[in-house]
């Protein structure tokens, strides 16, 4: 009973916050409305007794949205808070695609004859996730590592405005880097 109420309230909040993302004039509000939407999704996962997944969704999404807000504000082409603006791009195409996808997914959810649950979920889902990552899904995890490494290198090569040649000179001849603001450790 309570679980059902929580689910529906969270679902409504998630959708309403999601709508607000596209209605507000402020980049900060858009980012944090999205964060609120994800938190509501996290709560729904908790209502499904997916403890770890629910909490980690809240954790990760609040963190990512805090950072995304920063970039939304930095890279917006105009004032990020005080100018009326539209958050919608290519309205017609987007509406059609969204409607088709929604109808498709809703139809699938309602029409597919889902099988009854065969087994029972493990007592501790987080532990079985750990077992899966260390066991049958080990390859996935080992692939993620180099992918993340490549992400770090790629993102920074593209996004970092300075590199070591600018810091240490063309032949890396300087003992100490020429940085606008000093750091905290050595070199």
């Amino acid at each position, binding site marked *: 009973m309570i679980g059902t109420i929580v689910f529906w309230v969270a679902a409504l909040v998630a959708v309403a916050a999601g709508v607000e993302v596209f209605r507000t004039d*402020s980049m*900060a*509000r858009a980012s*944090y409305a999205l*964060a609120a939407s994800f938190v509501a999704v996290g709560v729904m996962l908790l209502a499904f007794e997916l*403890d*770890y997944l629910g*909490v*980690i969704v*809240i*954790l990760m999404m*609040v*963190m990512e*949205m*805090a*950072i995304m*807000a*920063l970039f939304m504000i930095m890279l917006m082409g105009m004032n990020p*808070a*005080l100018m009326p603006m539209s958050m919608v791009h290519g309205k017609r195409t987007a509406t059609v695609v969204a409607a088709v996808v929604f109808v498709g997914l809703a139809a699938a959810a309602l029409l597919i004859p889902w099988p009854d649950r065969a087994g029972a979920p493990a007592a*501790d889902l*987080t532990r079985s996730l750990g077992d899966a990552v260390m066991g049958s899904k080990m390859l996935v995890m080992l692939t993620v590592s180099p992918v993340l490494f490549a992400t770090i290198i790629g993102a920074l090569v593209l996004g970092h405005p300075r590199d070591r040649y600018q810091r240490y000179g063309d032949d890396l001849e300087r003992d100490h880097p020429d940085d606008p*603001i*000093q*750091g*905290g*450790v050595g070199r």
Partner: protein
Amino acid sequence: MPEVTTLQPWWAALAPVTLLTLAAAGAAMAGAQTARRRGDGPLVAATTPLTETWRLLRQRRRVPVAADRVLWHVAVGGLPVVAVLMAVVVPLGSVVLVDSPVGVVWFNAMDVMLWALWWLAGWGPNSTHSLVAGHRFLGLALAYELPLMFALTSPAIAAHSLRLADVASAQQGLWFAVWMPVAFGVYLLSAVAFSSWGPFAVAAHSDLAGGVLAETSGVDRWLVLAGRHLVLAAAALVAVPLFLGGGAGPVLGPVAWTLVKALVVLAVLELSAGRAPMIRPERFAEVGWMVLLPATVLQMLVAAGGAS
């Protein structure tokens, strides 16, 4: 699995008042230290939280032109809420309000909420000083968060569980604080940092005219200041099952021991104020990533070695 009884959910309604009492004790300690430095008597010192509360609740709120009122309200009111949510997973002796199987991760999620709240507190008032301070906090958060996550993982590895009651009971004989000093140290340091307090008070410091507090008056200011002591109190409470053996101890009962240990940790956190120069985020970034991060990873290796 240790026997911990989950109280009826309604008991959780008492959590904010209980945590507020602990936070008031913390605020009194900090007030006493400030008063002693200024040369005031001990009585004045101990009553500082009360007189400040009375003063601020009677003061008018103020709102700068074109402030983002909604987000500002979320930030100001969010601090106490997040602090209480952080604390309710802590077992008090044989009872607990919320027996979360992933309590450690929950604590982590709540400390991440503070990223959003401090930044929003800076964004809300539409003032240069507070905006700069809110951003400065995020710059610091990027450096302490990963070491903190690894520091939180170490006790979980040794206890084979993310449930705080399990972590507490796994320390029979030897506290994790003793054989995981790096993790414990990083935890304390991060607790001070995410509360924007002491040497890490980057979001609210006089060098930016009070930072996120530059435009904040009346009840808003009270909520932020009280919220900060509440967060410190919550962090002190969580440290007890994570690193200090939970309620274990001679003579006194487990509830009393949990509170005593929490008060000691809280004293350490609160009394860090003003003792050392502020640690600026632009300095701390490299320390966090190049010193603390590898150190906590090694700590985790030690914990994993000890556990298996």
